[in-house]
């Protein structure tokens, strides 16, 4: 190999046979060399840990200790743990009250941005600015705005004649506050994704609808929404995935009691519970089991997604 490399670099051309061998090797091997970094990185830092987490979840392991086979015991322990069910429910409710308004508002915002606008660039960058803000920075700012005693949000509510809301210590207000942070960070991002899809909708569809006398709202509901349906499904999947993994927002929103998701675990999510089990309690086996439950949840979501897409395709086929 070393000689052949020198041969290509050196002045005298290598013999024809060697050259074509080299050329063939170049053609055959190079694609694999190019994709190798991804697969090596994934194997080392993605696949191996994933499988190993599964193995750990069947054991009793402490940080730094040796593993002891436990079978499905960790999963059984989760099934009877009220903390687990609480975290699962919180992950679900926070997920719903952040994802649904976020995507609805993103749709509306994309529709607005789709008009012929003055200052279009400004509006697009402005609604995307929260995306540039980190989870940590956004949460620390919102934690101040939502503060029960001096936060601006309670001040404004006070002006409107409302009692101050205990945004951190009561369950639903805390979950709403956390969802607000998520929604704030991601609405503009999703709006831009919708906007791009909307601009790819063929103009003829709108013309046909207008000819049929469809109002603007009707056009939006009957032309725009169905046309960008794949994009909507895509964002639903992405944001559902994101909300399944929620960690930084609840942790930092809770301040000194953030690790346990509030004083009464009222906003403890699956990720927080996993962190607490693994790094505070040191029960790595149980933490791994929680991680695998999250994977199963995501697979379930992905399965539902596939089913919806399939049935949509079928309907489309039978419809036309």
């Amino acid at each position: 190999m070393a000689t052949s490399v020198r041969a290509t670099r050196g002045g005298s051309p290598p013999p024809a046979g060697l050259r074509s061998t080299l050329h063939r090797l170049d053609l055959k091997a190079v694609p694999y060399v190019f994709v190798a970094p991804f697969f090596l990185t994934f194997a080392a830092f993605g696949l191996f840990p994933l499988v190993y987490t599964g193995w750990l979840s069947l054991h009793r392991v402490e940080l730094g200790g040796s593993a002891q086979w436990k079978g499905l015991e960790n999963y059984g322990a989760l099934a009877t743990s009220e903390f687990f069910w609480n975290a699962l429910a919180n992950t679900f409710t926070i997920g719903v009250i952040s994802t649904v308004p976020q995507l609805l508002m993103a749709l509306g915002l994309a529709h607005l941005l789709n008009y012929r606008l003055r200052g279009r660039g400004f509006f697009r960058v402005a609604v995307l600015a929260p995306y540039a803000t980190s989870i940590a920075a956004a949460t620390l700012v919102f934690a101040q705005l939502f503060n029960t005693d001096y936060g601006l949000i309670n001040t404004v509510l006070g002006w409107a004649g409302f009692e101050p809301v205990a945004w951190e210590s009561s369950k639903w207000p805390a979950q709403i506050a956390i969802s607000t942070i998520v929604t704030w960070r991601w609405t503009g991002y999703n709006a831009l994704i919708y906007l791009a899809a909307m601009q790819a909708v063929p103009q003829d569809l709108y013309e046909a609808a207008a000819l049929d006398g469809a109002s603007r709202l009707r056009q939006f509901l009957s032309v725009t929404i169905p046309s960008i349906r794949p994009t909507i499904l895509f964002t639903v999947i992405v944001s559902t995935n994101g909300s399944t993994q929620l960690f930084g927002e609840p942790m930092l929103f809770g301040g000194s009691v953030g690790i346990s998701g509030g004083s009464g675990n009222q906003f403890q999510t699956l990720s927080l519970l996993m962190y607490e089990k693994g790094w505070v309690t040191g029960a790595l086996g149980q933490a791994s089991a929680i991680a695998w439950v999250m994977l199963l949840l995501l697979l379930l979501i992905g399965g539902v997604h596939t089913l919806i897409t399939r049935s949509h395709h079928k309907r489309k086929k039978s419809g036309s």
Partner: protein
Amino acid sequence: MARTLDTPTPTPTPTPVRTATAAAPAPRRGLLRQSAGRQHHAGPLTYVLLGLAALVSLFPLYWNLVAASHRGERVVEAPAPLLPGPRLFDNLAFAWNQVDMGEALVNTTVVAGLVSLSTVLFSTLAGFAFAKLPFKGRGALLALVVATMTIPPQLSVIPLYQIITGLGWVDQLQSVVLPSLVAAFGVFFMRQYLIEALPVELVEAARMDGAHSLRIIWHVVFPVARPAMAVLGMLVFVQAWNDFFWPFIALTPDGNPTLQVALAGLGAGAHTVDQAVVLTGALISTLPLLLVFAVLGKHIVGGITAGAVKN
């Protein structure tokens, strides 16, 4: 919400005239264009609603600046301040020197820089292979790349933590950089771009001239891919800059923190640390990216939309 969806504008609504044209054969396109879909000019209500959205998006960032310019005691006093105070530079100096946000800023720049450089390089190579080079198993491998995008980081952090503990890499920046050397999203993004942007004839012509693959990469692929590489670089930089979950586990606030880890450390000590300093830290972590967005906003918007449409 329903109201924003509706967005009535003062442009003329469909009238009986249009119903009449419906009956007429083959109406002229140009005329109808103005009344269809995106061609509409925005009415005042659109501007009001968009202005509101911009305000909601920008206010927390503005208030961050306000809070970072007051004394700690003032920030936690009702009603919270709405206008900038006199202490911005004192707070910045304090956060920079006392809580080491400066060091965190350097760490974050190093991490985000390395991660985006290597991701762009490796993604371009892999994207080129998937887009233009025939090889066995290409379809299956590409499907695998896409599938890995949905695996959450939670599934690997426990073994990863054991690995970096074993290697003595806790608090070392490489424990954050190495797992992010290349990303499935980047590979997919570059493939989508190169499929259309790079004519296969160009690659074949270079091969006919006797160029080997590295030459082709350097003289053909990189020049063609440059715009997409720039966009991908920005997106990955933003993501790496803001990454929280794994850095929070691998690095500690007292060791070699990135900005997000340092901030989390400040925030968790909520009762001992001056809130104005915490929010100054938040400002330091946000400002560089906001500046990038202000300058390159259009390209980032373009990149996000380009990456999404093709998904």
